[in-house]
């Protein structure tokens, strides 16, 4: 405004236009083009960011301090009721495709053996067409039924429908059996080859299973040859080299390559029932600092191709010595 009262006439005429311009700029700012909304948006963004970060941090704090029975657990179970069936449905929808893919892999493996199997090849191919994967699955079910017969454990069969991604840094899977089928928290999960893991939580028709190779998993194990006890911790490996690390309770005992390890068993068979084969000792290392040794154990169950699993729902103690040792052990 001071410019209007400019003392020089010549200067005043030349300043008329700048004044008009500044006025339009000011009015534009008032009606919202473009300064105002930018500031509004910035404030909105800051608010959204602040609230989101606060909500996330609060949730983390609540869940981290209250585990495993934090206030977030009901939310997880709620999410399992929603996402569990969705995952199972999605898995069922693409199973024909994934089965076909694994069928192709199978047939490629077969071709490597071609020299030996040339004369059988035609027959094999015909059989492949009838469903190699289906028959493999059937064989797994049969083997699981065999476990039930041998040990007296009651098993509920299920399939793996979703696998936790490597980005999550955990080794967990979703299976398509839940409380409606008798699956409960802290039940042992096995497959035809051996121990798979334990149930972390169960929804109505799905459950989340913590694999034994997860870095947070600890299983009590027993060397079958020496009956020595130890703890098996997962190495959390995200790839195919999932292994267990065995720490023996008695530091003087030395495991030998090839030793088989079975579960020691928890009181009441939860989370782990006794006598389930876990894996084979593959490597024995002396621990730095003391005399004790640790052994690397390769699990019997192939964690990269889990499909049919069984959840132990009945905990009838098997006959024999291991049942008696369980009570005294813990």
């Amino acid at each position, binding site marked *: 405004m001071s410019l209007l009262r400019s003392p020089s006439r010549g200067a005043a005429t030349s300043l008329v236009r700048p004044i008009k311009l500044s006025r339009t700029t000011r009015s534009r700012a008032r009606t919202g083009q473009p300064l105002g909304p930018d500031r509004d948006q910035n404030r909105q963004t800051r608010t*959204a960011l602040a609230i989101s970060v606060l909500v996330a941090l609060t949730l983390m704090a609540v869940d981290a301090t209250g585990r495993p029975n934090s206030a977030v657990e009901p939310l997880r179970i709620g999410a399992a009721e929603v996402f569990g069936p969705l995952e199972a449905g999605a898995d069922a929808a693409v199973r024909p495709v994934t089965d076909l893919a694994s069928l192709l892999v199978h047939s490629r493996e077969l071709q490597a053996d071609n020299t030996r199997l040339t004369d059988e090849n035609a027959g094999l191919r015909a059989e492949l067409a009838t469903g190699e994967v289906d028959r493999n699955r059937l064989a797994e079910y049969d083997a699981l039924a065999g476990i039930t017969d041998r040990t007296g454990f009651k098993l509920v069969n299920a399939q793996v429908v979703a696998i936790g991604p490597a980005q999550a840094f955990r080794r967990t899977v979703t299976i398509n059996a839940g409380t409606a089928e008798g699956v409960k928290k802290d039940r042992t999960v096995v497959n035809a080859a051996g121990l798979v893991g334990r149930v972390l939580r169960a929804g109505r028709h799905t459950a989340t299973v913590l694999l034994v190779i997860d870095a947070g998993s600890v299983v009590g194990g027993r060397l079958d040859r020496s009956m020595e006890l130890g703890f098996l911790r997962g190495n959390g490996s995200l790839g195919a080299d999932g292994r267990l690390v065995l720490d023996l309770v008695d530091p003087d005992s030395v495991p030998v390559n090839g030793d088989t390890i079975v579960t020691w068993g928890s009181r009441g068979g939860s989370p782990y029932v006794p006598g389930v084969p876990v894996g084979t000792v593959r490597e024995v290392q002396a621990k730095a600092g003391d005399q004790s040794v640790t052994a690397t154990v390769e699990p019997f169950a192939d964690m990269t191709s889990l499909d049919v699993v069984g959840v132990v729902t009945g905990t009838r103690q098997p006959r024999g010595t291991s049942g008696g040792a369980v009570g005294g052990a813990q």
Partner: protein
Amino acid sequence: MIVIRPLITLLLVLVTVTVQVGLFTKLSIAGVVPDLALLLVVAAAIVRGPAYGTVLGLFAGLAVDLAPPADGIAGRWALALALAGWLAGQARGGARQPAVATVATVAVSSLAATSVYALSGLVLSEPGIDVASTLEVLPIALLYDVAITPLVVPLAMLVWRWLDPTPVRW
């Protein structure tokens, strides 16, 4: 539209997370799956701005945190995706930005999200996370996210524009 729009958004998040957890695990590379939820959030942030991207990131991340078989401490993906949504919104060049800019935005957001998730795990001493495994996962996740960007992000951007056709002022 006032009820339908949030419903569709919710449905989108449900479908995205289901596909990510249920189907993409079958296409994993060394166990790493593409972060579909992240791509949805980035697309929303590009079309709708950083505030919307942040809030959608929070909810989508929460779904990833809670959907089975996830068992990490909840809130970590929520934090990661909210920050990614904010970041993508800040870097956006508008709904009609060049494709290269979109890919770059996805790359930066993916790196940020995976790092924030891993870092929060390290801070909370979650099992299974160390620097080595993080460095192993980060590049694969980044490349995989970028690789499926052309298939997912343009479509997601279309959906977000269709959901709310009023142009966002820049």
